C-alpha cells in the first residue's frame, strides 16, 4: 500500500521513509494540498519545534487539507511532534495553533525530571492497542522530547511516565500517534509501523 508522508520542511522524514519501505509500503512525500486529497493513508513525522511544524504546514497550504482528510476518516499515524501537532496548541509555542483535531493542549515536561526525556523507556498499557499488537509488554521504545500530552481517555492507549503520565500511544478513531520514534526503536518500533500498515490497509 502507499503511504503519504507529510514533508513540512524539517525532521526525520528519510528514516521514517526507509522504515516504511523496508516493511513493504510504497511512500510518497507530500508537500502540496492536492496530494493530501488523493492520499489513502498518511504519516505525520516530526522532530524539532512545534512552531516550525505548524508554520511549515501553513506555508505549504497543508493545514486545512490535513484537517479535512483526517476529519474525513483517513488513517493517519503521527510520530513525536506529529502526535503533538494533532492537538490544539502547545506550551512550546504559545499563540500558535495546532491541527486542533483533539481539543487539548501539549504541556512541558515538569522541571523535577530530566528534560528532554531522551532514551529508551517502557509503556503502561491502558487498554487493548492496535499499534502494540503482539509486541511484548516490557518492550522499550526510543523517546526524545521535552513536551507531551497528559494521558487521558479517550485517546490514550498506552502511557509512559516521565514527570507525569503522558500519552505514548494514542488511538482514537482513525487517528493513531506515538510520542516515541518507532523508526528508531529497533525491532519493537518497526513492529509498531507494521501494525499501522496492516490496520490502514
Amino acid at each position: 500500500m502507499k503511504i503519504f508522508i507529510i514533508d513540512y520542511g524539517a525532521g526525520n522524514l528519510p528514516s521514517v521513509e526507509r522504515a516504511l519501505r523496508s516493511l513493504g509500503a510504497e511512500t510518497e512525500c507530500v508537500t502540496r494540498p492536492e496530494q493530501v486529497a488523493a492520499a489513502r493513508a498518511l504519516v505525520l513525522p516530526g522532530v524539532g519545534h512545534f512552531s516550525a511544524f505548524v508554520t511549515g504546514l501553513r506555508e505549504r497550504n497543508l493545514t486545512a487539507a490535513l484537517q479535512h482528510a483526517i476529519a474525513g476518516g483517513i488513517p493517519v499515524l503521527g510520530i513525536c511532534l506529529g502526535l503533538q501537532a494533532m492537538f490544539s496548541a502547545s506550551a512550546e509555542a504559545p499563540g500558535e495553533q495546532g491541527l486542533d483535531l483533539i481539543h487539548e493542549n501539549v504541556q512541558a515536561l515538569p522541571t523535577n525530571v530530566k528534560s528532554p526525556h531522551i532514551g529508551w523507556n517502557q509503556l503502561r498499557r491502558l487498554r487493548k492497542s492496535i499499534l502494540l499488537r503482539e509486541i511484548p509488554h516490557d518492550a522499550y521504545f526510543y523517546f526524545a522530547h521535552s513536551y507531551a500530552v497528559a494521558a487521558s481517555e479517550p485517546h490514550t492507549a498506552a502511557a509512559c511516565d516521565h514527570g507525569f503520565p503522558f500519552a505514548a500511544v494514542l488511538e482514537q478513531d482513525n487517528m493513531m500517534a506515538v510520542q516515541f520514534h518507532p523508526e528508531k526503536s529497533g525491532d519493537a518500533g518497526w513492529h509498531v509501523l507494521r501494525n499501522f500498515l496492516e490496520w490502514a490497509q
Partner: protein
Amino acid sequence: MTLARRIIPCLDVDAGRVVKGVEFASLRDMGDPEELAARYNREGADELILLDITASRDGRATFLDTVRRVAQQLNIPFTAGGGIRRLEDGNAVLRAGADKVTVNTAAVERPELISELAAQFGSQAVVLSMDVKKTNAAWEVFIRGGAESSGRDAAAWAREGVARGAGEILLTSIDRDGTCSGFDCGLTAAIAAQVSVPVIASGGAKTFEDFLAVFGEGQADAALAASIFHTAEHSIGALKKYLAGRGVPVRLSR
C-alpha cells in the same frame, strides 16, 4: 517502567575508516563503519555515535558519505559530529541521516552555535561534547581534540551549554580516554549534578564493572565506549545482561 541506561558504541572515523587513538593520539585502523554499525545495531546497542576525527575541510564530503551509509544500517538513534562549526554543517549531517549532531570546539569558541542549532532542530538533536582534563584542583574543558586548554571550567560550561539549548552532554575524560582504567566517575557525577539533561560518560571503559560503576556512583544516563566493542573483547549483549543482573535498567534485545 524506568528509563533505561544506554550503551553507546562510538565510531571515530578518518577517511571512511574506523580508527582508534590512545589518549587522543596515535591512530589505529579498527574496521569498516558500515559493518561495525550493522553489528552494533544487531547486538542491541541503544544508540550509535559517529565522530569525524580528521574534520578537515576536504574530508567533509567523505564523512557525509559515511554518515549516509551508516544511517542505512540502523534502526536505532544515531549522532554524528566532529568539525561542526556552523548551522549548515549541522544541517548537512542531519540531512545525511543522523538524528542528532554533536558540537565541541566550535561551540566553545562561539557558544551561539548551540542556540542556533537548538532553535533550528530542537534541543533533542543537539549534543554538547566536552573533553575534560583535571588541571590542579579543577576540571577544565580542552578543545581541538584535547590539544588546547580553553580556560573554561567544566561544570560552568556544561550549565551554559544546557542553558543555550544542548539536550545532552557527551562528557569525555581526556585523562582516562584510551587508557582502559575505567570511567572517571567523580567527574561524571559532578557534571550530572549540575545539569538537567542526560549525561553520556566517555573515556576509559574496559571492564563490565566500569560500566556498573559509572551508572552507579557516576550517575551517568548513558555510557560510551569504542575499542572494547570494536575488538569484540566484549559484546554489547553480554554487557547488558551483566548490568541487568545487577539491577541496572537496560533494554535487553530479544
